[in-house]
């Protein structure tokens, strides 16, 4: 590609097509749109399943679908979880990470068809896995529910689709690097490694039960922190200075945040096994890792909130669609980190063990943080790649308020409901009926917020697909200003 550049073509503008696109962006437009469109479709599917699952959980009689064997809660919840994580989270970050590192490294994606191929494989394997889940064929390990033959396909697809950010990083033109690049590179390395190892230890060469449990907790913590967490942190580090037009405050601390994050995040898993027959020192390592994770959380808080606090940053963020979502996510991450540390400790952990609390923490990380950041990023990137505007400002508002309120309600219900539930379970004087009754209020909240999230996602999808269609329609090609 250096050959091309030396040939003296005017730089920064693609030779053909949309005049607003840089060469970098026009090269990755195809794969980006494939990843993005699939991610939104999966997000919609997951939200519909989320509503069904919430209704089922809310009514003791089994909800409106109790006679339908395919739609039992076990199937729906597992499919929802996997579609949200592998369908939405992965496709969307494939797109964003690729775009981000291409931008920062001025990388021109030449073999875009490889990424596209990876995306196709990824989504086919995902579809196959979800169909099998509905057919009643799933393993007992959360986020590894797909039958084991799906694993290798997903791994290969990841290498094809998700490895480009690393290539872009390796080929960057200058020696300078930026925080976003470190985080994306870490995410792109960490996932395939942990996924393959977990597959091997749990599904292909099953180790003993305890080792499986340890491997599983390790995999889940890596997936959540190092894929969702690191990728979304990368995006926040990019969009704050980019949109506000200023530097990150306390940026000199960012390398410490990065190294401490990748160092400790992977070790937090065993804290989920407190009380299980797992060697004590491993449990304690998990507790310590959760506590030490406060270091990157403090630094990112200084970086993000410091940047937002100076010179009316917050009000500017509020008035900018991208930043409104991104700063929502940044606040959620700080909250997540604090909760993670506090509830890593044995005393608190023992209260919320076996309750919905952990699900609440996961939602805080994967939805309130990562997904909101992804939404914000989309509002920034998509108009540039399609060359058109968002069709409806009203839908943007619906999207923000529905998802923000839905996320807050979901997370409060899971966290507070889990806490209450744990207190009651530990108290022998509370009967099981009472416990179930107390939980039903929170289940109602969960059902309503699942509907809210669905509404928000539909608004988002309508807007995004409208924009993509508009830009690909030939009539509108010359219309944008």
């Amino acid at each position, binding site marked *: 590609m*250096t050959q091309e*550049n*030396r040939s003296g073509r005017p*730089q*920064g503008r693609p030779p053909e097509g949309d005049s*607003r696109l*840089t060469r*970098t*962006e026009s090269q990755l437009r195809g794969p980006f749109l494939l990843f993005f469109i699939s991610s939104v479709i999966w997000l919609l599917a997951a939200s519909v399943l989320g509503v069904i699952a919430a209704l089922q959980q809310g009514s003791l009689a089994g909800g409106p679908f109790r006679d339908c064997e395919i739609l039992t809660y076990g199937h729906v919840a597992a499919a929802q979880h996997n579609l949200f994580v592998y369908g939405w989270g992965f496709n969307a970050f494939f797109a964003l990470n690729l775009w981000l590192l291409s*931008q*920062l490294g*001025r990388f021109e994606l030449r073999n875009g068809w490889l990424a596209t191929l990876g995306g196709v494989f990824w989504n086919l394997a995902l579809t196959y896995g979800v169909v099998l889940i509905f057919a009643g064929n799933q393993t007992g390990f959360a986020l590894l529910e797909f039958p084991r033959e799906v694993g290798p396909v997903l791994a290969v697809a990841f290498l094809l689709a998700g490895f480009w950010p690393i290539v872009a990083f390796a080929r960057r*033109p*200058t*020696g*300078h*690097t*930026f*925080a976003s690049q*470190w985080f994306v590179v870490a995410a792109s390395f960490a996932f395939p490694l942990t996924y393959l190892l977990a597959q091997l230890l749990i599904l292909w060469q099953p180790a003993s039960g305890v080792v499986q449990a340890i491997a599983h907790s390790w995999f889940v913590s890596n997936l959540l922190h190092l894929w969702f967490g690191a990728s979304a942190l990368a995006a926040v580090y*990019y969009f704050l*200075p*980019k*949109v*506000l*037009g200023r*530097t*990150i*405050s*306390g*940026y*000199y*601390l*960012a*390398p*410490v945040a990065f190294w401490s994050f990748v160092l400790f995040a992977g070790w937090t898993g065993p804290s989920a096994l407190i009380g*299980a*027959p*797992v*060697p*004590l*020192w491993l449990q*304690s*390592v998990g*507790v*310590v890792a959760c*506590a*030490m994770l*406060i*270091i990157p959380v*403090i*630094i990112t808080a*200084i970086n993000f909130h410091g940047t937002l606090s100076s010179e009316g940053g917050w009000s500017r963020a509020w008035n900018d669609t991208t930043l409104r979502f991104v700063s929502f996510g940044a606040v959620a991450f700080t909250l997540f980190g604090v909760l993670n540390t506090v509830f890593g400790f*044995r005393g608190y952990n023992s209260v919320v063990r076996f309750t919905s609390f952990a699900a609440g923490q996961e939602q805080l990380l994967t939805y309130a943080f990562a997904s909101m950041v992804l939404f914000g990023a989309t509002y920034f990137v998509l108009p*540039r790649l399609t060359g058109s505007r968002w069709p409806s400002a009203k839908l943007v508002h619906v999207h923000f308020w529905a998802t923000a309120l839905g996320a807050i309600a979901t997370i409060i219900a899971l966290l507070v409901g889990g806490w209450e539930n744990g207190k009651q379970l530990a108290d022998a004087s509370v009967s099981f009926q009472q416990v179930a009754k107390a939980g039903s209020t929170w289940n109602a909240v969960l059902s309503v917020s699942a509907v809210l999230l669905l509404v928000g996602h539909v608004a988002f999808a309508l807007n995004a697909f409208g924009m993509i269609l508009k830009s690909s329609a030939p009539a509108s090609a010359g219309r944008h200003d």
Partner: protein
Amino acid sequence: MNDRNRHPDNNRPRRGPSGAGSEGPSDGRLVEVHSQLSRDKDEPAEGFSLTPIFIVFLFCGFGFWAGLYLTQNSGNFAPSAFDLNAPKAAVAGGPVAFEPDAAKGEKLFLANCAACHQATGLGVPGAFPPLAKSAWVAGSEERVIKAILAGLAGEIEVNGVKYNGNMPNIGAGLKDAQIAHIATYVRQAWGNTAEPVMDTKVAEVRKAIGNRAQYIPADLLKEHPLETK
């Protein structure tokens, strides 16, 4: 991050600001400005900032705490310590909670008993009676403990076969815990399925029988009749 020694590649043509350029700095500038920031660690020079020093101390404190927590809550890093409360005694130097361990029992059996009863537990016909499927071994744990502690001499019938031999008081030279491991192994090996034996039980029996002579099998049976034939 290790970019101190590297120079921007000047051969590559510079790009103009990417995208519409309406928002924020160009990406190239964004990277450069920040990498400058992280190298010089220069916040705007309005006096001396306490933040970095405070943060360093804070993080050192965290590290110190982490080390402390790990050493105090890890059951000496023993792979068999699962419960926070049990191993605390071990850290304080107190007695470790006993767990009958058939694997340890097997080693001790091979060293102390296998010469006569054989590693297979089948004994030697006419000389040493079998322990495998022996009714003497199953049932009352006190019978086995007594046999090991004081030994046996005289006529004995095991699995319908009569023996008349002499088993010395091997247990007298073994610790309570060792005897408990051996007895547990013997009661669970070769198809035997009796309960494990605790060291406290051995201590109890040792105290009760004192320093006595070998048992005559018939006498031992009077104290602890066979539960099964």
